[in-house]
């Protein structure tokens, strides 16, 4: 890691090239730029998660720490390659007036031609697509579950401001559940008459799952609370009896369906790097999330 103090984008870019030459100019094959917008306290954990996700998607990772917006503008950066990274990394700290213009720092550092993704590990902007940094990216990843301010509403806020390219890790966490539910209906091609989702009290994933089921099955979906962790059960009612998936330990679920014995099925809660890697796998619009987000926003409006 090279420390650059009171620097600018050109110097950071020059350091990238120097670092690469020092490493013997290895072929890097970086496929994207990943911007991570973090607070000072979470920076280390977030960069570590990005590093692990970068194993699957070699990227230039730009960590941006937005500091105090008052005073003289200062740009400091730590630049590095190698040492466990499959790409390049810079952790950029902004202070003073430049905090209002972070895109001016980041824009020159985007890799040519390749896609840009941005991730807010916590507290995302209310409208990510309108955010100056968010506007640079075609994939904007928020995480409603790790929001510290206004947690109950966080996913609704994100869904209301949905724009093409937005996605939330609360949705990513659902993929195994959704795969299992879809597989259940493959096995039992029955009409679902009602459904319910039970989860810990605040669970953006459960809200999205209920919205998805409502949207796809056109039935009302009941929400219930449990002690968690996360989502603990999903039940689809059919004429032959309920199809249910229950998971009380966050690891091993039980799959029950009409006329069949209960079967255990692995359904482990996944860690952030894994979620991030899934999110970066496809960079075009996620139509199903779009429909679900719109549905959730609508459900919110119609409920008292």
């Amino acid at each position, binding site marked *: 890691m090279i420390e650059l103090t009171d620097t600018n984008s050109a110097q950071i870019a020059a350091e990238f090239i120097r670092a690469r030459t020092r490493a013997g100019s290895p*072929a*890097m*094959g*970086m*496929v994207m730029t990943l911007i991570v917008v973090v607070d000072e306290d979470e920076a280390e954990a977030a960069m570590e998660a990005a590093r692990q996700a970068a*194993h*699957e*998607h*070699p990227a230039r990772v730009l960590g941006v720490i937005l500091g105090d917006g008052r005073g003289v503008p200062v740009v400091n950066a730590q630049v590095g390659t190698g040492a466990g990274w*499959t790409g390049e990394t810079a952790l950029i700290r902004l202070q003073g007036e430049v905090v209002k213009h972070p895109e001016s720092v980041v824009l020159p550092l985007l890799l040519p031609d390749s896609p840009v993704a941005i991730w807010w590990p916590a507290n995302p902007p209310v409208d990510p697509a309108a955010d100056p940094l968010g506007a640079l990216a075609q994939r904007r990843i928020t995480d409603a579950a790790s929001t510290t301010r206004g947690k109950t509403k966080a996913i609704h806020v994100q869904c209301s401001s949905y724009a093409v390219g937005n996605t939330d890790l609360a949705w990513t966490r659902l*993929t*195994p559940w*959704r*795969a*299992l*539910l*879809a*597989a259940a*209906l*493959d*096995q039992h*091609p029955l009409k*679902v008459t009602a459904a319910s989702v039970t989860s810990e009290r605040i669970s953006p994933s459960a809200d999205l799952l209920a919205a998805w*089921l409502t*949207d*796809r*099955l*056109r039935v009302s979906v009941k929400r219930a609370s449990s002690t968690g962790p996360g989502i603990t059960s999903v039940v689809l009612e059919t004429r032959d009896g309920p199809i249910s998936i229950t998971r009380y330990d966050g*690891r*091993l679920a039980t*799959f029950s*369906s009409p006329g*069949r*014995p209960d*079967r*255990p*099925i*692995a*359904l*482990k809660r996944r860690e952030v790097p894994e979620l991030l890697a*899934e999110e970066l796998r*496809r960079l075009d619009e*996620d*139509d*199903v999330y*779009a*429909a679900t987000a*719109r549905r959730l926003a609508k459900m919110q409006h119609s409920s008292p």
Partner: protein
Amino acid sequence: MTTTRPSHGENPLRDPEDRRLPRVAGPCGMVLFGVTGDLSRRKVMPAVYDLANRGLLPPGFSLVGFARRDWANQDFAQIVHDSVKQYARTEFREEVWKQLAEGFRFVPGDFTDDIAFEHLGRTIDELDLVRGTGGNHAFYLAIPPAFFGDVVGQLQEHGLAQPSEESWRRVVVEKPFGHDLESARELNAVLAKVFPPGEIFRIDHYLGKETVQNILAMRFANTMFEPIWNSNYVDHVQITMAEDIGIGGRAGYYDGIGAARDVIQNHLLQLMSLIAMEEPAAFDAESLRIEKQKVLRSVVLPRRLDLTTARGQYAPGWAGGQKANGFLDEEGIKNSSTTETYAAIKLHVDSRRWAGVPFYLRTGKRLARRVTEVAVMFKRAPWLPFSAVSTEDLTQNALVIRIQPDEGMTLRFGSKVPGTAMEIRDVNMDFAYGGSFTEASPEAYERLILDVLLGDPPLFPRHEEVELSWKILDPVLEHWARKGKPDQYPSGTWGPESADKMLARDGRAWRRA
């Protein structure tokens, strides 16, 4: 946005736009014959676990082992457990294991034992009932081909090969698919008597490799390669599969088979057909097969096989810093064995695209290093504005597709040496598949087993291709059987001198792979 309502009978939770949802196999089970073999323990069982770990197996997936062992279900589970612990690609997780382990069954018996197959039938029925496998079962024959007849005969006799309404029964076999055209036909007849062609899955694990599938993506999803992919620009093509190990403990299998039957007939000819084929109409089994067959059908052998083929046996020597003994000294190999451990052949493809472009195929054991790659060697530039001296170090442009290890692509072209007046030298541009994409590239067997369970056949060779491959190879094998014996080459080198001479006659040389 309005989502389209699913029509009756479709799963409302499925949406073709929903590409996050993995292709999970429907309710099904697998019956594994030859549980104790290397293939089962090193490849098949770990792949099943890895699939489960990635959430791609249906709840209730069941694995039945069949072997002549006095085992109970738990003993079989222990064997799978050990194999998974040792060979699985993904980490061992207790909850995944629990999900799988409930579906393990073991049926002891001989391949000719009627009682055992009745027992197998009852086991499958029981699984359909308690595990919900829905009557869908794949029979994986990880056993020597000599026993295929017994097993599929028994399956038919006991009604195990016939699916009931809306379910399937499939059979999976591994190479070798015969040892010449005639035996391949016999083998196919045995399978085809019992299973329809669409339910027979022949595993050529090379075709399950990501880089091999990437050959199609590279050729047909890009514009820059296809215009030069013909005899106007290509000088010749070299396809290499080299192994650094000897035959190990496989003398019984290898003696009498040899390198050409073991590798060229299947892997190399399949690779060649992917490199040489025309654009398929779609990426489905039928379209791919048509194109591959067209290539194989238009392959012709040179007239003088003595000048255009080479074969060898590894002699004692030093390989990678270790002393290695020769093929004839291996345990279980007779001193007079004429089985080749190195084989090289030259082929022509009689088509407008490839007329005059030779394809050189070679494979061998105990070569300098383990590598599989396809090198497309381009013609030299017709005229250079530079002096002969300045281009002394410049050879041919080359595009190398590296299949294993270090999957990826290398492009070789000339570049000016800095500081000189005008000195031009070869440089390499590298694309490492593992670097640009996932570290966690699935194993070929995972992909292929999942495809079997999904009933998705594009990556499996059909018997027509197998037979065409034998038609190409048979004259070479006959020529070799008639005349002489393999040349000796020291272990740890790049093969016999005769192979170098074979290319030197054409004014070419093998790449150092």
